[in-house]
């Protein structure tokens, strides 16, 4: 009944769109390219309105050629542009893989700092939506194992916007994993600042404080961890939840500090287990925070299978509240 309307909450997708819009606005040398991003406004609408606002030259509807999308971005960056390259689904990034790992990731290194690559390759990722093998992937580990790439995965609208802007301005190539199941998720909508803001890369967020065990995660699984922490609380276990937000660079200190308090850790992500980023976190913890550990560090990840289609099968292979809770309980009991 107040005269001043409450500021509107915004969803994760809107936050991303605003980030792109604002960066395109502030940087006339920025270009967006991808399949169906202009006339259509993107398969999910992340780029909706951009072509009308910034023109067809700066918002390019590309042919179905992921390798060329990346390669063309490399060339534009070499010639002074900042580029957002959309993968319609992050699963299709494998079609542009060579250009990413061998050109984009290495250009700065190969030229001994002459040519940096301000290119953000972003796209919808993640399972739990019934997308099956080719519309559910979290393939971030491939890129974490390819030196020269930043790898980012936000879980909230605020972070989505602030991290995307940071990635675009960082001047480094970034693979930006958007969680499509969060794009329009009502429960996580939030009010965003009116003014320009950044969320720094390489800085984790403590989503919930706790003393008995640390749950480390990112993306969609942060919410599984938060729900698990809630349930663990009912069992008298106080869990701290860390959202790492950016994988490369990684905020290791935040993790070690938490473990110095809790002495126990479960790492959760929805990528395949072997050589996934959960394993990387476990390895770093074991190597660098060994003295704090009172129990083996545990990972809860996707099984080492593709993501199957039908619901019971999909859920079977993915991390869940139940799996996290039981791992946490076992770890605390260890």
């Amino acid at each position, binding site marked *: 009944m107040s005269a001043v309307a409450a500021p509107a909450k915004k969803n994760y997708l809107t936050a991303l769109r605003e980030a792109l819009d604002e960066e395109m606005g502030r940087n006339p040398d920025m270009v967006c390219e991808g*399949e169906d991003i202009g006339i259509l406004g993107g398969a999910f609408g992340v780029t909706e309105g951009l072509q009308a606002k910034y023109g067809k030259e700066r918002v390019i509807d590309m042919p179905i050629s992921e*390798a060329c999308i990346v390669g063309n971005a490399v060339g534009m960056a070499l010639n002074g542009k900042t580029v957002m390259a959309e993968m319609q689904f992050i699963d*299709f990034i494998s079609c542009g893989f060579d250009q990413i790992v061998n050109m984009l990731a290495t250009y700065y290194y190969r030229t001994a700092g002459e040519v940096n690559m301000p290119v953000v390759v972003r796209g919808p990722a993640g399972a739990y939506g019934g997308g099956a093998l080719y519309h559910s992937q979290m393939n971030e580990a491939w890129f974490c194992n390819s030196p020269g790439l930043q790898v980012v995965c936000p879980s909230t609208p605020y972070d989505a916007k602030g991290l995307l802007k940071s990635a675009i301005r960082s001047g480094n190539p970034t693979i930006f994993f958007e969680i499509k199941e969060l794009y329009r998720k009502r429960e996580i909508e939030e009010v965003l600042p009116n003014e320009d803001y950044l969320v720094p890369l390489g800085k984790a967020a403590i989503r919930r404080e706790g003393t008995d065990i640390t749950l480390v995660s990112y993306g969609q699984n942060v919410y599984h961890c938060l729900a698990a922490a809630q349930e663990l609380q009912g069992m008298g276990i106080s869990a701290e939840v860390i959202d790492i937000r950016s994988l490369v660079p990684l905020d290791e200190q935040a993790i070690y500090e938490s473990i110095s308090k809790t002495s126990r850790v479960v790492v959760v992500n929805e990528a395949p287990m072997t050589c996934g980023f959960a394993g990387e976190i476990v390895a770093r913890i074991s190597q660098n925070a060994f003295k704090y550990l009172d129990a083996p560090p545990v990972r809860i990840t996707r099984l080492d299978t593709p993501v199957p289609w*039908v619901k*019971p*099968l999909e859920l079977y292979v993915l991390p869940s509240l139940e799996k996290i809770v039981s791992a946490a309980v076992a770890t605390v009991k260890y």
Partner: protein
Amino acid sequence: MSPNSGTATAVKAEAPPETDQSRRPQDALTKEDCLEILKQLYLARYFDVRLIKEKKRGHLRGTLYSSHNQEAILVGSLYGLQPNDWVSPIHRDMPAFFLKDAKFKWDDRERMGLSIEEVCAQVWGKSGSPGRARDNWSHIGSRAKHIIHSTSMLAGTIPTATGVAYADRLNRGDAVVVTLNGEGSTAQGIFHEAINFASIHKLPVITVIENNQWAYGTPNELEYALEDFARRADGYGIPGLIADGQDVFDVYDKMMWAVDYSRAGKGPVIIECKTFRAYGHGDHDDDRAAKYRPKPEVDEGRKRDPIAVCKQALIEKGFLTPQEANQWMAEGKNAAEVSNDDFPPEVVQYLDRGIEFAVASPVPEPEEAARWVFKENG
């Protein structure tokens, strides 16, 4: 050039056939064949509208990529194939899975091609599907039935097709391999690599390009510099034919020419079929598609319904009377406008049978998800 020159030789492609009205393959089709072809068009259309309705009723998950208005390409491409020939359909070609080598009758339980039960079980996500519903929607296939398993990665099965053809040659077989593709997928690098390889070795791979003028929200002119995607063939020195994708008999004619050419060992062929996508890219896209494709363009593109065009041809061939042609009036109608009465009863019954099976088929057990990553007891 070199004495070590390998198996291939570099020669100019045979010129595509003139439209020689006196020896069109379609003229050899019997009345029975022609009526069967019409029925298959009904069948493909019915499959599509029925699934749209089932999904509206909440019975289905997954995206529907409608083949409405493009059925002549499926039926015309497949009708003349032999059972040992291979087919590689993609997302918009769902009816191709049960219409494969359809000459051998879709209602004959002994025929090749997947059964309607298997295809419906896939759509419903049930264990009766050939892949036990592990992958979604159109992503099925069958080694036994010579259907290459469809996948998401556009053009990604064209090298599968070359490999199948190469292996068949090693086996001294005479199969041809027909791949179906949207025009958008021709921009993929793998399209180039595979067609290049096929042309070097003169592999019997026939690439059908369904040019429905849009790739999702991207129009032809942003996909390719030329108007006719058949011209992609010129870069490989292979024949590139253009068919009227609304006319099942024209598609059939071009395909039969290509099949003869390829089976004779002369090499791959590209056939562009001109058509128009009836709805949005998928059923999720219908509303947005209405914005990027204004109604006049859509009306124009859908003017020549393949069922109507087929009927007209049958009347001209003297195989159908105007009264018979009016018996089932599916043409020109969207899912919302059409009813079962617009289709021959056996078409409805056929699909009923498939759906009944699908509904009754159990959902796979969750534990199955961990199986078949690696060969078991291998």
